[in-house]
């Protein structure tokens, strides 16, 4: 589904990603871990199409298409969804209005009929249950004044509404209390199918207890320096990153 080859990206001339390789197939869950500042969010942003990042080398194909060639909105319509690490507050734009515009534009691109107000509302109700999000939140402006946890929950709600084939969850677990974590993970798991894939960026094993990954990758200094199965996450939880850093840094000095 997603194939990243030797991806290099920089911001304002500073290289951040230095040769990422990653293959994600339908039905898989990949976890990306790694110390602060290693480039996890950068990778997520580059995949979603943020313009500030300049791709200097490499390629990304998504369902056979050159992903880097597409505008952010077309990536979303093709089925890429990024749950932001820091969802943006947008005063004045109502959550419902925003979502309806988004859903219908995505549907139009996929050759589906636009949803009328009634159908949209019933879809919304159905998906709201999935992440147990309060109607009151959605009657407010988009993310405005939402608590950290509410914002994260809203991201997953939007994901449920847009039915992406590749979801990238950037630290969706941080800021969630234990109950919310369970609810949000349940939501993600229910949306999982053989046809879609998930990349979860996280620092914590506790999320991976709920959303069980097929693969775990460690990102460090803009490269995937270690990959393994879910046991790798447990090892990281126990030992931290130092041993990996040492491995990488000593290899680099040789």
């Amino acid at each position, binding site marked *: 589904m997603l194939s990243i080859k030797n991806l290099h990206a920089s911001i304002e001339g500073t290289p951040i990603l230095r040769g990422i390789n990653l293959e994600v197939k339908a039905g898989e869950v990949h976890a990306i871990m790694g110390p602060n500042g290693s480039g996890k969010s950068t990778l997520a942003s580059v995949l979603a199409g943020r313009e500030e990042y300049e791709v200097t080398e490499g390629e990304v194909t998504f369902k056979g298409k050159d992903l880097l060639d597409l*505008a952010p909105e077309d990536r979303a319509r093709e089925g890429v969804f990024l749950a932001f690490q820091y969802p943006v507050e*947008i005063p004045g734009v109502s959550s419902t209005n925003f*979502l309806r*515009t988004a*859903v219908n534009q*995505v549907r139009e691109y996929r050759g589906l009929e636009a949803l009328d107000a009634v159908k949209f509302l019933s879809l919304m109700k159905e998906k709201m249950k999935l992440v147990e999000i309060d109607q009151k939140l959605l009657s407010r402006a988009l993310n405005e004044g939402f608590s950290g946890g509410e914002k994260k929950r809203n991201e997953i709600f939007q994901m449920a509404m847009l039915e992406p084939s590749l979801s990238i969850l950037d630290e969706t677990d941080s800021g969630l209390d234990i109950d919310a974590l369970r609810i949000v993970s349940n939501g993600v798991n229910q949306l999982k199918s053989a046809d879609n894939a998930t990349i979860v960026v996280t620092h914590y094993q506790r999320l991976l207890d709920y959303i069980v990954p097929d693969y775990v990758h460690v990102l460090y200094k803009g490269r995937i320096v270690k990959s393994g199965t879910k046991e790798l996450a447990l090892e990281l939880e126990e030992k931290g990153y130092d041993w990996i850093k040492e491995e990488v840094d000593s290899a680099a000095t040789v």
Partner: protein
Amino acid sequence: MSTLTTQDTLTPLFEGAPADFSSERALAKESFYTQGLPAVKAEEYKFTQIARKLEKEISDFNPAKPVSITEEMVKTAIFEGFVGYILVLNNGKLEEELSQLPSEVSISALSNQEIGSIAKPSKDAFVALNQASFVEGLAISVPKKTQVEKPILILSFAKASAGQVVQPRIWIEAGDFAEVTFIEKTILLGEDKVFSNQVVEIKGAINSKIHYYRLQNEGDQAIEVSNIETDIQKDSQFTAVTISLSGDMVRNNLNLNLLGSNSEGNMYGLYLLNGKTHVDNHTNVDHTIPHAESNELYKGILADQSRGVFNGKIFVRQDAQKTNAFQQNNNILLSEDAVINTKPQLEIWADDVKCSHGCTTGQLDEEALFYLQARGIDKTQAKGLLLYAFAGEVLEHIEDESFHDYCVSLVQERLGSKF
């Protein structure tokens, strides 16, 4: 001083003025020549070179004569869903035949001798020019305890050839406990530039409630100076909403004098500018007494080579303790060639007051734009959504539903957020 004032160029304007109000006109004319049209460096007009504009664009300083206005024209000028009274002005002159006036309100040609008592000619050359040479004014008086249920739509038709000058002059009075809403819309006929120099004086008595909404969307023929000055008394409320969408050069002087305790003045404005449109909003609120409140919010979105000016003066006199005065001006620049000059001017002589002001100028929020795009929303529409979210806050202050909806649709159309 502009050459227009030093030479005889303006003489036809004064000679064309009728014989009524002779002493008021004479006084104003003298005041006009004392002040002169604002020179290039005049502080109050330094960003808006209106005199230079007039020198360039207006060759005939005769008062514009009334033109022919048909029922059809009036009909097209009324926006969808409007329910209310209609007052048609023809180059400033009341067209009774074409108007539908409320019976409970007295509306007639201006004849009272109070003119100039609120908008004083000595304070501004354009006010003086209007008072010295307006052709026919209009007096609107809402008797006390009269609540005019439906809004009064002032359709001000203007046409001039080779420039010429249109000088509407309106006197509005609302008695104790009276309530009234005005919607002013100007329609320019013909192809030529029109110089409109309007003065509106508004007097709100005790416990009155006046709304004055304006839509400036006349296209780039409009060279306009508008002077609206309001005196309001105890427990009264005045709200102005000024929506500026087009024009060549527009200067709005909005002055609000809070003369009684517990009075409330609200000034809201939205300017969406493109091309070379130049819009200048100068507001001034004078807190003269304790326990009054003023709220002000002006927002602007400027594209292309447009230019905006906002100057908001808040004057709190020594006696005006317990004043609440709020002012906010926010701007979004969509192009590198667009310019905004914004200046809050607070002069506070009382010590126990709550005043706040703030102004911001920035670009469209790229983070927010990306967020919307990342959800599948087209970039142009995402921009439209964000810009409308910004602008909509001003439109919310329009209480008349049909006018609100009309402005919303004009604004959305302009911002590309209508879909």
